[in-house]
């Protein structure tokens, strides 16, 4: 084979593989859009699921439930992630820091379903009840490594001179950290948080036996709650065409939220971190 032909084959393969790689995305998005749009209407966002055979209905409770569970996850995950990240960036250049960083790395590689088992044993069995709280706890743990890592990186990027200038003004160190350093790093940290929120919004596995599911509106954190992903799963594996349509519509709504957040965040920040 001449060098010229090899060169052509190389380029051809690279182009072809790139093309094949984007086909699934186009297929998934177009199916979700085309199948989902027909089942989306106002009722879908505002009504409860209806029994099989009854017309109409929606998954309003699941949409609200997802927001509640994700909100709870933030309450669990953000303080640990943000303060943990700040500590690592400022005081973590030692053995303790190494251990914590290593633990965060290991935590991020644990499959989410295993985190779900942990939440079941620790919260559901103890409270003797499935609850939004248990689901939020599981998702919160999943957030921690990403938020910690982003916060650490962003705080480290703040110039040292800013820190010293603050101290020179006579402010105590902790005020300098919260008022100056944290604020400067905030936009980067926020990006990490939003990407992490987008990711947990799409999580199903750890919710199956923590947040469980509900047929009704639920605003109580100590009660089982419906979430979009679990509802989509239940509808997807059902045999009823009416429920399949709801699964597609739910997917469209979910993708709209998740991809929307991802794209927006990406637009506003050049550096994108995946956890």
């Amino acid at each position, binding site marked *: 084979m001449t060098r010229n032909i090899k060169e052509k084959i190389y380029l051809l393969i690279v182009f072809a593989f790139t093309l094949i790689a984007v086909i699934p995305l186009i297929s998934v998005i177009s199916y979700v859009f085309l199948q989902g749009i027909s089942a989306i209407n106002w009722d879908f966002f505002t009504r409860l699921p*209806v*029994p*099989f*055979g*009854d017309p109409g209905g929606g998954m309003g409770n699941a949409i609200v439930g997802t927001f*509640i569970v994700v*909100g*709870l996850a*933030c*309450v669990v995950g*953000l*303080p640990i992630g*943000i303060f943990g990240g700040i500590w690592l960036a400022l005081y973590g250049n030692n053995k303790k820091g190494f251990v914590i960083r290593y633990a965060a790395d290991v935590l991020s590689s644990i499959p989410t379903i295993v985190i779900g088992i942990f939440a079941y044993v620790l919260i*559901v*069995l103890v409270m*003797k*009840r*499935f609850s939004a709280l248990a689901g939020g706890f599981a998702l919160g743990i999943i957030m921690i490594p990403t938020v910690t890592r982003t916060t650490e990186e962003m705080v480290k990027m703040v110039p040292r001179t800013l820190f010293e200038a603050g101290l020179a003004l006579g402010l105590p160190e902790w005020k300098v950290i919260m008022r100056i350093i944290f604020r400067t790093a*905030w936009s980067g940290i926020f990006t990490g948080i939003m990407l992490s929120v987008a990711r947990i919004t799409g999580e199903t596995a750890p919710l199956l036996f923590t947040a*469980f*599911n*509900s*047929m*009704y509106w*639920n*605003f*109580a*954190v*100590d*009660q*089982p709650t419906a979430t979009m992903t679990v509802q989509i799963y*239940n509808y997807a*594996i*059902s*045999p*009823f*065409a009416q429920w399949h349509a709801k699964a597609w519509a739910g997917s469209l709504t979910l993708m709209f939220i998740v991809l929307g957040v991802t794209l927006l965040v990406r637009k506003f920040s050049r550096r994108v971190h995946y956890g």
Partner: protein
Amino acid sequence: MIKKALGVICAGLLTASMASAVVINGAGATFPYPLYLKLNTEYQKATGKQINYQGIGSGGGIRQFTAGTTDFGGTDAAMTEKEIADAGGDVLHIPTVMGAVAVSYNLPGVKDIKLDAGVLADIFLGKIKNWDHSAIAALNPGVSFPNKPILVAHRSDGSGTTDIFTNYLARVSTSWAAKVGAGKAVKWPVGVGGKGNAGVAGVIKVNEGAIGYVELSYAMENGLSVALLKNRAGKFIRPTLDSTSAAAAGALEAEKTRKMVNSGDFRISLCNAPGKDSYPIVGLTWLIVHKNQKNAEKGKILKDYLRWVVTTGQKYAPELLYAPLPETVKNKVVSAIDGIKI
């Protein structure tokens, strides 16, 4: 800024949790799930009380009830004495409706196939692998079967439907009883697993050549073909409401069964019941509750709900293809519910 956001979230969650009404949570059998969904929706409309039932499988229904994570459970496999002891001993089985387990398949253009116990067992044992097998053809003269491999679909979760189905197979086929046995979850010789009745019906629906067992309403509502099964009287019977009720009537003729019902034990088997119109694979489904309710408020709601289910609620059963309880049984059940201590 972050503090403010957290404050808002916390405050929101607190107000939200205070506004909650009492919800009774139950989970279990998927076999009656479409009906319970309907019943609970109607019950909420009528009384404003929220009963949340999730179909996770009978095995799960018993486990979560035993672990105390649900207020009541649903199962189509009666709890064993050991399971009852694990759950605290004071377990009451409340039968709600009866249903047929339909043998459902996906073969375009081939309707109403007839099967007997032996062939059915051989299919699920993996001895009959192809639709054009001579044993199937022998039962269906005049029907031409395609040369297609059989894909057996079964449950992947602990299931009362599986319990009813495998109990039937174990009773009618010695090789099934020896090799596999009966229970909520068994070691399947062949096939693919689907989660819940819905999952199995879903597998049958999208895979040509598939055969599986699902509660009747899952098959009918979904337009799946069902097989006619040979009963004890030698007739091929289609699973319907009538053939389900006929099986219950047949089973209640037995002295032993009548005695159980009269003594308030409703864990009766309707499997392979006598009677010329009886469909052979029929089962009761139960709600399981504690006889001594710890929480007075919840106990009262639960009691009212159960009474409604076995009386007024029965009228919703036929349209979803579940057979209502026979009158003789119903009266006994109501007095059992009245005996629940709050």
